[in-house]
């Protein structure tokens, strides 16, 4: 007899309202920052004519990349047929939507002319990967919304596999597009590499799964729905593999760069340039954001401990933000080479390493985007049934005991 999994809204308890109040405040501050920039212009930011994309872009791309990765859990359930992930799929789809909206909000509000958003939706230059991304982002929202419908409406369940497959393929293309925003910049030494596209896909896997885990754990603890060890174990192992995968792409990217003198300039600048980007790369991305979470996830002392998994997820997100900061801002800090091998100077910072210090309005704008994501997710979960009533292993997976015994036997063999 098949056990039907029941879903239930999260409780609108005191913690829920406190969270909403905090996020509301942060969103309000971001709105103030936006109007401040609208009146005074981007001169009130740390961005300038050399560092044209700043902290808002780090926040935005972090969330956009995470959005596509948050869909992992649903994809594994629908596309790859792993039953145990299916009850976790609706939350996965929800996060994909809310993260993307949060990220796009920051991106749009940082535009010089955000009031012209309608132009971005009606005038397309199809040679621009940016224009393609606008289509990919909007399409992603529509496809994931459809996907959620097939997951949450019983009569539509039979369509969840094909729609899930479409969403899976679409997100791979979407993150390829996001990575290609940088990959297609032929003029800049720090970018212009096709490997950036698959690297961004792996980044989306790790950051998206980390955000998923954190949301799942927060919702579970706030609603007394303990998560089974077996499912946590699976998810944390997956997270570990993704973190290692990103690290692999980063190593390949820099090693191939270092091979030829022409490309080595950019990698040497990041890896050993002595600027804040070198510190952020090694300390924030490599140590705090990659090695430490890997150690936490796989060391026998901490492996399987839910708090440790939560900490590792937080560190993964911080590491991802650090890596994006180095890619986006570090890549612009490196002076453009108009005359390779020559010493140059001008009134326009030619030949100089470009400094960048984010201003308060930029920080508020970025944080506001994250708050928007959190608030939308919390409200959606309180209004609709995204989370199973129980997250215990035997409730999520009817074959839990048999399967786990087999796995244990295999591990011992």
């Amino acid at each position, binding site marked *: 007899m098949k056990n039907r999994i029941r879903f239930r809204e999260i409780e609108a308890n005191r913690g829920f309202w406190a969270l909403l109040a905090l996020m509301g405040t942060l969103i309000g501050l971001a709105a103030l920052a936006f109007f401040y920039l609208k009146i005074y212009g*981007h001169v009130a930011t740390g961005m*300038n004519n*050399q560092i044209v*994309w700043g902290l808002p872009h780090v926040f935005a791309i972090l969330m956009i990349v995470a959005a596509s990765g948050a869909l992992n859990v649903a994809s594994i359930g629908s596309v790859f047929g792993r039953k145990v992930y299916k009850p976790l799929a609706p939350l996965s789809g929800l996060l994909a939507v809310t993260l993307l909206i949060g990220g796009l909000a920051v991106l749009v509000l940082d*535009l010089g002319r955000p009031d012209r958003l309608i132009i971005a939706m009606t*005038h*397309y*230059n199809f040679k621009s990967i940016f*224009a393609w991304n606008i289509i990919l982002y909007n399409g992603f929202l529509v496809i994931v919304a459809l996907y959620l419908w097939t997951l949450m409406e019983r009569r539509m369940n039979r369509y969840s596999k094909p729609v899930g497959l479409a969403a899976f393929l679409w997100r791979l293309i979407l993150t390829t597009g996001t990575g290609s925003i940088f990959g297609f910049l032929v003029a800049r030494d720090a970018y212009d590499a096709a490997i950036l596209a698959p690297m961004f896909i792996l980044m989306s896997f790790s950051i998206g799964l980390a955000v998923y885990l954190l949301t799942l754990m927060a919702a579970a603890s706030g609603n007394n729905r303990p998560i089974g060890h077996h499912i946590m174990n699976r998810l944390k192992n997956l997270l570990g593999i993704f973190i290692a995968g990103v690290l692999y792409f980063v190593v390949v990217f820099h090693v191939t760069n270092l091979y030829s003198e022409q490309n080595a300039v950019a990698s040497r600048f990041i890896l050993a340039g002595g600027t804040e980007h070198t510190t952020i790369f090694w300390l924030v991305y490599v140590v705090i954001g990659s090695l430490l979470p890997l150690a936490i996830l796989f060391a026998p002392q901490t492996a399987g401990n839910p708090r440790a998994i939560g900490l590792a997820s937080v560190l993964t997100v911080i590491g991802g933000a650090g890596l994006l900061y180095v890619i986006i801002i570090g890549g612009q800090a490196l002076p453009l080479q108009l005359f390779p091998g020559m010493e140059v100077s001008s009134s326009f*910072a030619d030949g100089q390493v470009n400094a960048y210090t984010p201003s308060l309005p930029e920080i508020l704008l970025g944080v506001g985007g994250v708050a928007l994501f959190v608030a939308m997710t919390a409200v959606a979960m309180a209004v609709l049934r995204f989370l199973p009533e129980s997250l215990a292993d035997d409730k999520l997976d009817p074959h839990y005991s048999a399967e786990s015994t087999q796995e244990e036997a295999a591990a011992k063999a």
Partner: protein
Amino acid sequence: MSKLPEKTDTDRRRFVAGAAVVGGTVAIAPGVTLMAAGRPADEAVTDKVRWGLLIDSNKCDQGCNACVTACKAENGIPDFGRPATDAQWIRKVDVTDPQTGNSFSLPVMCQHCEHPPCADVCPTGASFKRADGIVLVDKHICIGCRYCMMACPYKARSFVHEPVANQKPHAPRGMGTVESCTLCVHRVDRGAIPACVEACVGAQRGAMVFGDLNDPNSLISRRLREYPSTQIRADLRLNTGVRYRGI
């Protein structure tokens, strides 16, 4: 709309038809070119001409800033004393070879590429290349995303970081949009030469020549044929409209 009778009108047609190729452009001194053929406002731009610049860094003095000053005055680009965010359509770059100590100076502005990366990446098509090779920004559909600034190999573009005042009617600007050298399109269309080139002549340098790259008899084409020249970042194969000598 009534059309003003203009003598240049007929000159233009003859020019385009190739009947008065030499007569269309008159060189009155080395580096000074008067464009006799302006373009009436109701006549479409064609690709029969491709406007370009030839800059001779041998004649460009490191201490001279005449082209930059003239550009700012012509196009109403203010100087707020904030070099990181102030717009610079043209700048002087001093270059030194660390091996030999040889140094030279040259102005760098939008290179008016045949294959402009800024126009390729622009999501809305606000960055575009006119048929006559001039790369421009349509201020009405620029959303201020700055992707073109990321893509330009020459750092030729500026973002308008603060509110603008006292704009020139021929060079509209707007906070939150991107701008760059227009090759003084408003002057070129009426048959005049860009302000920087005029100032260079005025400063007795004659380091800049403006003209039609498609016209084999124009001064710029003859100079380019006669002497070796190069493009900045020629490796990117953008086929720039701005060429340099002595670099």
